[in-house]
């Protein structure tokens, strides 16, 4: 059973066209929800960690929010360099801090 579901699978935006990516999770007792950016052939690049409903974090044009069942990654006025796959992951235990990843949202921002 998938614990992390990301939508949409792919998103195409015009430069400057703001939008949101969704990550819904089904784990009980969330111990951390992580957002990463991944460029083709590269490792995931850490963006944010969220822990409790209502929490928000921002970095440049990105803002991550968390509710009890889902997280949103808002992209404000995106630029072509924001094109990447955005990964959501939840921490699935406290023993080793392992992460369970979603399949990602592939974002393409066109000029």
């Amino acid at each position: 059973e998938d614990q992390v579901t990301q939508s949409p699978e792919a998103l195409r935006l015009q430069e400057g066209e703001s939008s949101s990516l969704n990550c819904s999770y089904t784990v009980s007792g969330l111990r951390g929800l992580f957002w990463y950016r991944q460029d083709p052939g590269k490792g995931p690049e850490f963006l944010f960690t969220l822990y409790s409903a209502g929490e928000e974090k921002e970095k440049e044009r990105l803002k991550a929010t968390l509710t009890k069942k889902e997280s949103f990654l808002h992209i404000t006025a995106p630029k072509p360099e924001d094109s990447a796959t955005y990964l959501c992951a939840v921490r699935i235990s406290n023993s080793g801090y392992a992460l369970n990843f979603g399949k990602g949202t592939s974002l393409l921002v066109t000029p």
Partner: protein
Amino acid sequence: EPEVTQTPSHQVTQMGQEVILRCVPISNHLYFYWYRQILGQKVEFLVSFYNNEISEKSEIFDDQFSVERPDGSNFTLKIRSTKLEDSAMYFCASATGDGNTIYFGEGSWLTVV
């Protein structure tokens, strides 16, 4: 900015051969991980390592796999008797003691032929 470094970046090996992938985690981090990503699929957890022992492992991490921290800086993943389905990108990651920030390396692309 500190980073996780991995070698080799790409390795091609014959089926049945042993492979060792190497990683240098961020120096003050306490947790170390291996993940893999088969082409076109999601990133999957393999194993976590803390205080010189495995703290958690997934079903993927069977007897074919082993990890070691041979000295104070390196962290290795050994795959014995590689299979075609082991072809994937393998990521090393490390985290601070509270696990709040987990950084990934650029990956080692393994091709088994």
